[in-house]
């Protein structure tokens, strides 16, 4: 199990598990990260196979699930819905499960170098495209190159830019990107690709599961459509954008053949109110996610089963630190101390929320360090404002998107609490698309930050100085240094040590109030087996089956 080729850190990881310094979940996570297969890692951890479902899945039948769909290039996908539609046909190199553990998928394994700057990706043998052609390292290299090209327009570029690309400004002032090294994406043999990174990066396997990272056939159009050639368990037989997608099993699938004879995704658009009605009357058997206000109605339906999971999805109310008065750390801290995060979570999300700690690392993240509780302190907040030169309080505007609806509630709760420390803020509710046109420029705004499997991922995207999504303009060399250090540590215990000062620093000095974490919840008909709620709302229909 721990052969010569294993990562040198593995033995230490095993002893930490034995000494209870890390829990099994963290052991599994880190061991798989270091290139051990999930089943081998489970054996090391003393569990021979995952807990078995009580019922044996049956083949046959068809189900309908609510999910929006579009006919677009997966590289420019911008929604979980669209990725769920393509996910059944187009697959990913890795897969982060509902348990937040990332495992190889179209890869057989991966192996990082000790300095985490070279990642060897071993492509699974025996994987075939629907048309019968072998899936090889050429397909992998082509896809990665395509996703990193400016013309493609993929959000993968922003994600991997820091360690894969160099940017340069042309004569016309426009920024263009190119691979940082000609050998950055290296084909070793037909089933091996090596990524050579500009800087160390631990989240490569997680990035490979970013929703735009679906593998498409290099020899055909990448547009998602009926008959598209993928490696996945289902093939698309019918696609009407904005209406529905119909799938049938891929008879040549390389893995376990799906149980369902037919799968259909029905698109209800933005009509969130229509969705529970369809579920209740049995027109569909599952929905993407349930809104907090729909919970009581759906809970009362005897034929529906609730599925939920806690996530690292937490919007951040952030301030532009290059604008007055938010350039003053005392003002930022005062604004945080004026808010009771637990009360905000309760008001905005009810049972679906829990309090954030203003540092955007969630309890579900493996490297989460539990700091002493951050509590509301009106007197200290007032004193800090006075020290900063604002004894009479402040006035400014907070921008927030119309959807999801609870974001407006978060802002309303915070704004009400601020009144106690003399801060009078007005709320500007903006159409979601309009907000994201200007999101990095707004003085104060509440921005959605989706769940990501590692704690370092969101804070790296949002607060590293000069990062493209650094919407607050936060620029703190000490934070950057600590973050880079954390990102190069594979050991969860060691990384957690670095996370302590990072979390403290963001809590005290950081540019945002991050008041809530939300649970993701959904309902499926009790007749559907094999479902588990994924923190990112991903649907894997290959696991679903219909009870008699």
């Amino acid at each position, binding site marked *: 199990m721990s052969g010569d080729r294993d990562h040198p850190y593995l033995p230490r990881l095993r002893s930490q598990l034995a000494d209870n310094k890390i829990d099994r979940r963290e052991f599994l996570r880190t061991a798989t990260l270091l290139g051990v297969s999930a089943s081998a890692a489970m054996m090391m951890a003393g569990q021979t196979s995952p807990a078995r479902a009580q019922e044996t899945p049956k083949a046959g039948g068809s189900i309908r699930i609510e999910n929006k769909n*579009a006919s677009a*290039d997966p590289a420019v996908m911008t929604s979980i819905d669209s990725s769920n539609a393509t996910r059944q046909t187009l697959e990913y190199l890795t897969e982060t499960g509902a348990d937040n553990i990332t495992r190889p998928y179209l890869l057989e394994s991966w192996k990082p170098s000790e300095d985490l700057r070279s990642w060897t990706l071993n492509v699974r043998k025996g994987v075939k495209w629907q048309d019968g052609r072998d899936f090889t390292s050429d397909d992998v290299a082509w896809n990665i190159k395509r996703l990193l090209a400016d013309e493609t327009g993929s959000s993968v570029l922003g994600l991997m*830019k820091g360690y894969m690309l160099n940017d340069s400004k042309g004569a016309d002032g426009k920024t263009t990107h190119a691979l940082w090294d000609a050998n950055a994406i290296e084909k070793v043999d037909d089933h091996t690709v090596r990524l050579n990174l500009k800087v160390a990066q631990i989240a490569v396997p997680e990035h490979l599961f970013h929703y735009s990272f679906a593998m498409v056939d290099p020899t055909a159009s990448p547009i998602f459509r009926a008959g598209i050639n993928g490696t996945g368990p289902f093939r698309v037989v019918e696609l009407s954008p904005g209406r529905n997608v119909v799938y049938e099993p891929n008879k040549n699938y390389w893995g376990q053949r799906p149980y369902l004879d037919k799968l259909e995704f029905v698109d209800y658009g933005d*009509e969130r109110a229509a*969705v529970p*009605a*369809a579920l209740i009357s049995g027109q569909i058997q599952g929905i993407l996610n349930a809104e907090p206000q729909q919970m009581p109605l759906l809970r009362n339906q005897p034929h529906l089963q609730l599925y939920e999971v806690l996530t690292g999805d937490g919007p951040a109310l952030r301030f532009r630190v290059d604008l007055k008065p938010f350039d003053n750390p005392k003002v930022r801290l005062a604004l945080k101390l004026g808010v009771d995060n637990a009360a905000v979570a309760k008001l905005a999300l009810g049972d679906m929320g829990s309090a954030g700690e203003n540092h955007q690392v969630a309890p579900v993240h493996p490297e989460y360090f539990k700091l002493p509780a951050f509590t509301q302190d009106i007197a200290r907040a007032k004193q800090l404002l006075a020290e900063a030169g604002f004894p009479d309080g402040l006035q400014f505007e907070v921008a927030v998107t119309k959807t999801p609806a609870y974001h407006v509630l978060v802002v309303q709760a915070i704004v009400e609490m601020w009144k106690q420390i003399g801060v009078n803020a007005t709320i500007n509710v903006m159409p979601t*698309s309009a907000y*994201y046109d200007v999101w990095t420029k707004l003085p104060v705004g509440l921005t959605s930050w989706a769940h990501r499997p590692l704690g370092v991922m969101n804070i790296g995207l949002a607060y590293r100085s000069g990062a493209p999504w650094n919407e607050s303009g936060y620029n703190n060399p000490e934070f950057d240094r600590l973050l880079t250090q954390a990102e190069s540590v594979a050991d969860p215990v060691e990384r957690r040590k670095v996370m302590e000062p990072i979390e403290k620093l963001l809590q005290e000095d950081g540019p945002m109030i991050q008041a809530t974490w939300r649970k993701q919840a959904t309902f499926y008909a009790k007749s559907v087996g094999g479902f588990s709620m994924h923190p990112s709302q991903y649907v894997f229909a290959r696991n679903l089956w219909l009870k008699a």
Partner: protein
Amino acid sequence: MLAFALRRVSQLLVTAIVSSFLLFVVTEFSPGTVSRQILGPYALPNQVALLDQKLGLSQSLPQRYLNWVSILVGLKSNPLGDPALGLNLSDPRGDRYFGNFGYSLMFRQPVRDVLAGPLANSALLGAVAMAFIVPLSLLIGIMAGANAGTRLDRLLSLGSLIVTSIPEYAAGVILLTVFVSYLNWLPGTSPLLASEQWSIASQLVLPVTVLTLASAGYVARIVRASMADTMTKPYVRTALLKGLTKSQIVTRHVIRNGMIPPMTVLLLQLNWLVGGVVVCESIFAYPGVGRLLLQAGLFGDLALVQTITLISLAMAAITQLLADMSYMALNPRVRLT
């Protein structure tokens, strides 16, 4: 008659040009850009700018309007269909033909293909709803109007008033709660996808009911007012004195004359039913033009919004033309100058 029709058609053209340009001006100020919508919030600014340029969104407003008109009448080919751009847009009809409404950027398909299904669905919903609205509102309106001031009139008028004042979304939610949540008699949504449990017809029941409730009461009140007014005309008294029964007077004289004002309103309902039932279609997720318009508007899908609005305009103009014609048929004394 011919001169009149020609004049109305030319007025229609002017209206179309002016309103389509106004549409462009309005959409110019709509928040967000299409490129941002397509690429999402996490695309870098340079990626968005690149797509803006490809889509020709950086051109000036009048220039874009002229392009759009030239493409529409088939003078110019649509630059978005150029494969060199890599937008993967193509039109099976070729790149230059009359009636080319361009590409829907939300669906990445020619607008004509996107619109065909919803238009047929909305026409179906409208036709079924009209089949209930017309007889129901005429019956109620005539009964109330012919018996103006009686207890029956007050009962019918009050009933119509109450039904009319319930907004569509409230009626929708009430019906959903009763017939879907409690009784489980009907499907909760109408995506027009048949399943073993729910036929297409069963999916039409609730949307048609909501539309009928929203419209029939209002039309009935117009009919009633016009009927009651006609009932006070001297010729009705003359007919009564001549010895005709009340039902003879109503059916032979009053209905024909009393129908002129309600005709316009009824035809306007037709216009609203095909293209304007945004609320009802949204509540029931009915795949019609109203819901599509809402989606397109939120996305900023210019070509689609423009086309749907143009169709609505054309419908309005045509139904009003029909209304004018029917005036003449109902009452030859009407002289339109």
